């Protein structure tokens, strides 16, 4: 479990803090997402949590122990999927994995070939990473993050650069990790990914959390209680959801022609974000 209280962080020589008092909690077995535009402080927060940045103020507790008191055993138990691919291009995929695997206790390691199979890179194990596409490198990023079977995982834009098939593959695997009880913290500005993966999301803008909620609840709260009906003849109209079965106009409309589709008018996560924060996600 990760508990963050009043987290403030300023980069050296910066005039204003990048993080301005963040408060959130991520439970074991939960996928939690930070959504926000570039420069909002998402990655900075993750860097503090995986101990690349220090000298913050506030309190961070990991499994009820202060982050500052955790040593190397903490780093053994976390996995980080970076936003951009970062591998030795002159080494093969297998050599890259073997190199970093050597730093973790062998009893927890997953075999490199099994990892590569998870992301469909088993036939490319002995190819130099320089010859990989960005998507292949990102998949290699992903398996490097999970190769030592960590309990806490940080993913920065986990589906960035992936085609829809491989993005789906990675998302399904992240969900399977959640089902194994892993604590997962994702930062993204891809609303679809957040919507699909996250149990709860925080909207973060200019270093401040604006709201933390379940994506489904956010969409319901900020959507319209309407359905939109479209008929085969091209006619379309909206009706209130309340007491829909007794709505004479609705019944008359759907008897007019064959119904092509019916949609609820809940807001998309992106619309909710813009509505709440007044900012765009780009």
């Amino acid at each position, binding site marked *: 479990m990760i508990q963050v209280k009043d987290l403030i962080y300023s980069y050296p020589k910066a005039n204003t803090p990048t993080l301005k008092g963040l408060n959130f909690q991520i439970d074991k077995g939960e996928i939690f997402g930070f959504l926000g535009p570039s420069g909002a402080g998402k990655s900075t927060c993750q*860097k503090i949590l*995986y*101990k*690349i*940045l220090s000298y913050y103020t506030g309190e961070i507790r990991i499994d009820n122990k202060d982050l500052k008191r955790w040593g*190397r*055993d903490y*780093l*053994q138990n*976390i996995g*980080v999927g*970076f936003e*951009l691919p*970062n*591998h*030795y*291009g*002159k*080494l093969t995929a297998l*050599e890259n994995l*073997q*190199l*970093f695997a*050597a*730093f*973790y206790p062998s009893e927890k390691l997953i075999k490199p070939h099994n990892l590569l199979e998870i992301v469909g890179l088993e036939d490319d194990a002995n190819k130099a990473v320089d010859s990989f596409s960005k998507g292949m490198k990102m998949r290699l990023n992903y398996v*490097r993050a999970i190769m030592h079977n960590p309990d806490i995982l940080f993913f920065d834009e986990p589906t960035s650069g992936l085609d829809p098939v491989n993005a789906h593959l990675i998302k399904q695997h992240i969900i399977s990790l959640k089902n194994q009880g892993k604590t997962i913290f994702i930062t993204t500005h891809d609303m679809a990914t957040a919507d699909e993966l996250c149990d709860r999301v925080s909207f973060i803008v200019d270093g401040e959390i604006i709201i933390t909620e379940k994506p489904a609840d956010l969409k319901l709260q900020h959507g319209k209680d309407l359905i939109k009906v479209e008929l085969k003849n091209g006619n379309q109209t909206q009706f209130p959801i309340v007491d829909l079965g007794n709505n004479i106009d609705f019944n008359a409309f759907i008897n007019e022609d064959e119904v092509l589709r019916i949609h609820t008018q809940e807001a998309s996560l992106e619309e909710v974000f813009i509505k709440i924060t007044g900012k765009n996600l780009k």
Partner: protein
Amino acid sequence: MKHLILLSITDFKLIFRDPSLRVFLALPLMILALVLFGLPALIEEYPVVNDYVSYVLMGACLQTSTMFGFIYSMVLIHEKDIEVAKVYGILPVSKKGFIATRQILPFTLSSLVTFLMLQLQSFYVFNLSQVILLAILSGIFAPLLTLSVSLLSKNKMEGMTWFKLMNLLVSVPLAAFFIPCCSWAFGIIPTYWVFKTLEQMTLAENIVLPISIGFLFSIATLFLLIWRFSKTHFS
């Protein structure tokens, strides 16, 4: 230990798979061959060169270390450039220990080639323990150069520029031996103490003072660079 051995092997693989760095790996051996075989032949042809053998040895010792320093600085700059350094930042190892142990190979290689050069050259007969000490002191300049060049550079191009400047700077104290009146003024540059120690050895004089100052100066600089490097390289 296993990971450090694998890391050393990986560093070697990266150097061998990069054609430009592979060439640089051969340079210290070429310097060794020049001192062992080329210099005696040159003296035979031009006896006047004999008066400058000690300075040639000084330069050769240092160039051996700077070559290994250059090669490993390129490896570190490249891993910073491609952001692999960030991955090392989240590994369960001590950052300072990781940096220090990663310098063992360039230091050992530099010390070994310098030792062979001083021990096998045919111009002076040196005391073995003095040769070992000077080879170690000279070898420290490989990590010093590796760390300082990679600290100052954002990419390989900058690295090459900084290397040229540093190489010039570490060679400057050689001038001290041509202006004896103020030679000690060059003591602010750590390599002066390598040159001074070697000069004392060629004159069969006591080396305790220059080599002690040399070790203190270079080890203190090394610790400072490791500390600074651990703050910047991984983020």
